[in-house]
């Protein structure tokens, strides 16, 4: 029986739609973030802190894959354009859900689009959304072994925050062990230990994000 060599990488149809989303973001000249973490890792707090710090410098919009719009309402109350992505209780966002929600936002009026994914360290790693940066948030109470247990999520991060650093001393959190796992999976990834509660470390993270935004805005001209 004839055998035909193929050797072709299998893509998810999701990846093809993610490329389309990316083209739309690029046409609008904005920077899109895909914010991923466990439930309770601090996605919403990280986003709220970005808004507090950068809202006078850049135009920010937020898309949210939550089931309820509670978090979004507080952003909307501050005049931030928001959109609730209908996930139907799904375990992750995919490119199609994001694509469907894009018409609800005026992308040309934004510099920064923050997409808050569903709280989960497994499934979101497998679905590109078309965003420019994967922002992964780990948090101290989850334990230092998370990179070892969820390698795909940490391998795909463009920037990694370790949140709730104010709890590190109470939790016996082994930062070196955590960082070693990250470094093996994703050498040189931008890493910021922060606490959204005390504000520790946020300046460095926001400075990094500001620099990425400046690159995007410069590329527009």
């Amino acid at each position, binding site marked *: 029986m004839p*055998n*035909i060599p193929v050797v072709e990488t299998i893509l998810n149809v999701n990846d093809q739609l993610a490329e389309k989303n990316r083209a739309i973001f690029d046409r609008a000249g904005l920077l899109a973030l895909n914010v991923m973490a466990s439930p309770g890792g601090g996605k919403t707090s990280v986003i709220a802190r970005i808004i507090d710090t950068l809202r006078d410098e850049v135009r920010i919009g937020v898309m949210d894959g939550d089931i309820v719009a509670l978090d979004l309402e507080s952003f909307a109350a501050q005049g931030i354009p928001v959109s609730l992505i209908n996930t139907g209780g799904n375990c992750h966002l995919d490119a199609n859900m994001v694509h469907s929600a894009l018409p609800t936002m005026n992308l040309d009026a934004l510099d920064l689009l923050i997409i808050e994914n569903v709280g989960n360290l497994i499934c979101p790693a497998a679905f590109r959304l078309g965003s420019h940066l994967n922002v992964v948030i780990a948090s101290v109470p989850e334990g230092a072994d998370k990179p070892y247990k969820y*390698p795909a999520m940490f391998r795909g991060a463009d920037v990694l925050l370790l949140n709730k650093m104010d709890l590190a001393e109470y939790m016996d959190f082994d930062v070196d062990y955590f960082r070693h796992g990250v470094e093996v999976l994703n050498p040189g990834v931008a890493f910021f230990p922060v606490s959204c509660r005390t504000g520790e470390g946020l300046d460095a993270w926001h400075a990094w994000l500001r620099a990425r935004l400046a690159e995007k805005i410069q590329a527009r001209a």
Partner: protein
Amino acid sequence: MHELGVTQNILAIALRHAEEAGATRITRLTLVVGELSSIVDDSVQFYWDLIANGTLAEGATLEFRRVPAMLRCNDCQHEFRMDYETFLCPRCGSSRVTVAGGEEFYLESIDVDLPAPV
């Protein structure tokens, strides 16, 4: 549910290569699946049985060649299976290790029937 999208792509790639070769039927597909690609064989098989029906690939066997997640030591070059716990070289103890395999996910080859020569 994650496997539907990739199964559709597997079918599309296989059909394209079969048609280019003028095949009348696809009988077997050999897939290389890395441990870190988080693809579940049974789920791919489930969707395959649904979507291959009515195509050249109807009834074709899926063969999965699993590739383990591997790490390589940058100091002694030893390659070893990822242990999901320490990421340290078991031979020399070095912490300078990198991912060396397990992310593969590709269609390696297809077996086909060709029309009998006239």
